[in-house]
């Protein structure tokens, strides 16, 4: 805010009889309401006075705008996006709420206010995951909501339930107002009417695909996404037998990569060793959707069986994921030694520190490994080291 100059009209208050009209109007109104009136009539500029003006020209312009055009934005209306971009369209009758722009910033063409989940939608997600015992993956595909979002919704709803049962005060009027201001994705009980909330198969752009590579290939060769991934990661060409195998049954090849990621071929030496870049089919969050589409293209008449196959693929994926999680949990359990003294409220858990190639890195200078190592200075006490925590474990 710019420095405010007192709105007291000094000479007027001292000598009220000089201009009785202005003095009364000013004394009765606050600074903003004074400028709310057209400045030319009620707040005349004092040209011959040495006292500072009550308002700068810019401020009076601002209040003029706020009281004319800006008025439209002052109060919110349900399901009307009152963004600055819509200033011209807001008063018009011809513009329905659907036609209003969702861009909050008039200059930025690339940012739109995207819909959030409505209350019913959140409740539905929570119900499907907790009561119907569906997996996050399945719910994500059904409602077209990102898997991470599904998990977050369940987590937040769980917390909300706990708060309600504890009788903690909730911000209900606030929540209602936000749901009215921001576009929302509504839940529809008919799955065909359900609008997708977001794209669920987003492929993250991999670092290796940044450079443009000129790679000559004979015209007779079928150059696929698998080959492109190998070129990007600098891996040698696949033998013809493997190429044929993949071409005959692409779904199996992809599921092998997604379900057993440790078996993916590696290239490079030492620090540079990386997995071969997999095709997009394997790197998207829901690879079995592609397999399902492939089935429905190749076997258009076996609709029911295709659906069954899809369900079994989904189940298989879930099973493998659960197994993987359990295995990591087991490994962590095995690493920790638990001590529970008899007369203690606490359980002490010890894990051994590991100084190995994984923690120190190939050159032995990694920061993860504890302890002092020759030639690796500790910057712990150096000036400018950021000490704020980097993670909060639940």
């Amino acid at each position, binding site marked *: 805010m710019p420095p405010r100059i007192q709105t007291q009209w000094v000479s007027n208050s001292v000598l009220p009889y000089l201009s009785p009209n202005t003095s009364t109007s000013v004394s009765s109104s606050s600074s903003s309401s004074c400028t709310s009136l057209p400045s030319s009539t009620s707040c005349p500029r004092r040209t011959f006075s040495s006292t500072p003006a009550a308002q700068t020209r810019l401020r009076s312009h601002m209040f003029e705008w706020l009281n004319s055009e800006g008025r439209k934005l002052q109060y919110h209306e349900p399901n009307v*996006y009152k963004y600055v971009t819509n200033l011209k369209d807001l008063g018009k009758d011809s513009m329905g709420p659907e036609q209003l722009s969702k861009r909050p910033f008039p200059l930025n063409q690339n940012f739109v206010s995207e819909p959030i989940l409505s209350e019913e939608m959140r409740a539905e997600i929570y119900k499907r995951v907790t009561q119907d015992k569906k997996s996050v993956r399945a719910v994500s595909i059904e409602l077209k909501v990102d898997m991470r979002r599904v998990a977050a919704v369940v987590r937040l709803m769980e917390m909300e339930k706990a708060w309600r049962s504890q009788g903690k005060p909730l911000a209900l009027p606030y929540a209602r107002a936000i749901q009215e201001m921001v576009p929302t994705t509504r839940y529809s009980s008919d799955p065909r009417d359900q609008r997708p909330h977001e794209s669920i198969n987003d492929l993250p752009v991999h670092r290796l695909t940044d450079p443009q590579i000129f790679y000559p290939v004979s015209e007779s060769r079928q150059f696929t996404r698998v080959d492109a991934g190998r070129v990007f990661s600098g891996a040698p060409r696949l033998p013809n037998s493997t190429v044929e195998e993949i071409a005959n049954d692409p779904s199996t090849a992809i599921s092998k990569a997604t379900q057993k990621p440790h078996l993916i071929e590696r290239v490079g030496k030492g620090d540079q060793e990386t997995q071969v870049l997999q095709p*997009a089919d394997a790197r998207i969050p829901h690879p079995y959707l592609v397999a399902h589409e492939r089935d429905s293209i190749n076997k258009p008449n076996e609709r029911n069986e295709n659906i069954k196959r899809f369900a079994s693929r989904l189940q298989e994926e879930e099973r493998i994921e659960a197994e993987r999680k359990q295995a990591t949990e087991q490994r962590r359990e095995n690493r920790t030694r638990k001590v529970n003294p008899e007369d203690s409220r606490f359980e002490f858990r010890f894990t051994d520190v590991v100084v190995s190639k994984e923690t120190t890195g190939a050159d032995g200078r990694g920061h993860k490994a504890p302890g002092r190592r020759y030639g690796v200075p500790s910057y712990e006490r150096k000036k400018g080291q950021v000490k704020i925590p980097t993670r909060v474990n639940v």
Partner: protein
Amino acid sequence: MRNRATTPLSRAKIRQSWSKYNLYNLQRFRNPSTSNRTFFQQKWTAKSAARAYHGEQVPETQWERMFSRRIRSVVPMDATRLAQDDGSIASSGRGSGIMSPWEMERAKKEKLTPFTQMTFAPLERRLDTAIFRALFASSTRQARQFVVHGAVTVNGKEMRYPGYLLNPGDMFQVDPERVMFATGAPKSKAERREGRIARQKTETTEEGEEGAAEEQKEGKEEQKPEAEEAQPEDTRETLKGLMAQAKTIMSKEKSDLPAKKKQELRGFQKAIKRVLSRSESSSILNDNLESQFSELMTLLKAKRVEKKADSKGKNTESQPAAESSEPVAETEAPDSRPGQALTEAFQKATENPAEEVDTSELTEDELDTLKRALIQMRDNPIDSTKPYATPWRPRDYMSAFAFIPRYLEVNQNICAAVYLRHPVARPGFSEVPSPFSESINTAAFAWYLRRR
């Protein structure tokens, strides 16, 4: 930390704030002209404009360390297209793919990924910025204050560092009272005065608690005979009055002055309390809404009207259940018809008092109105001790700034949000909320690329 985030009117600077000064600056901000200016000058103006908005509270050196030239982006994949083509179509011919004319058209229409609009993406990881983006604070400075004052938890633990960089999956939660204060309309002068008086009263009662208790007893004794007197004569009258009050509350009009509305609300609240105090069970005033409502109905001898008797009201318009829990959302007044029916019923009842049962029968809509008024009173009560104007309403000009970016999942009821992932760019869209055009952000990106 001194707040240097002024919103000067002479040079329009946009800030991460919901103030009306900022709104004014936002609507009049134009791209700086590039004609007759060196590239260095263009970059300098672009960077200073962008930095006034993005991470204004972060020192320049710190931001320079945070800056990353590697920008995250995603490409939405269509499962059908992946299934149709193994990639060989794109590499067929002489390597650039053989496309039919309509495919060429489609390829032309595909939007480019606005990478440079993501220049300030690393700052969106900061806790204070994320709180502002989740609409829990009216400015990043305020969000920062909430963090420093210990009103914010991350994963259930108090976090006092506004510069904490959120990791994907982190849940942060702000004290709902603070959020209501930050996003609600401020108190007026009269309301502040009321709050002061209420505070003084509580202080005096704390001092002379015994006396107050005695007073209360006396008051109760006074009230009780009154109620007993009142009870036989006019349950009908009370119901009538209640209904009228509920209706005026629910028919919210924009032109209504907040003070007047408040008076009405307070009257309604008092009436309800008076009725409920007649009940035998003393805990009913603190009980949940359902029991209160049923108690009210039994006390007033009100009944739900039979379906066939509904013909005179003819209320085909029944609101869905979801809306009934959103009383504030109700801007259109419940139509005048049930009101007319009700007054007719009351008139009839006064004409021939023999048919007493009929009069206290209520249609579905009327019951609904009464119930919604009750719900609103419970959820959004008048409370002069709160630091914001009560009943709560969003602050002015808030809707011009209201959007929630995709990388956050927010639950407004508990004022908690989950940072799902880092913001990404996708064809045509960027997830970093920036008020600047691509020309400014590109120049700012180029500024920070130097020496790198």
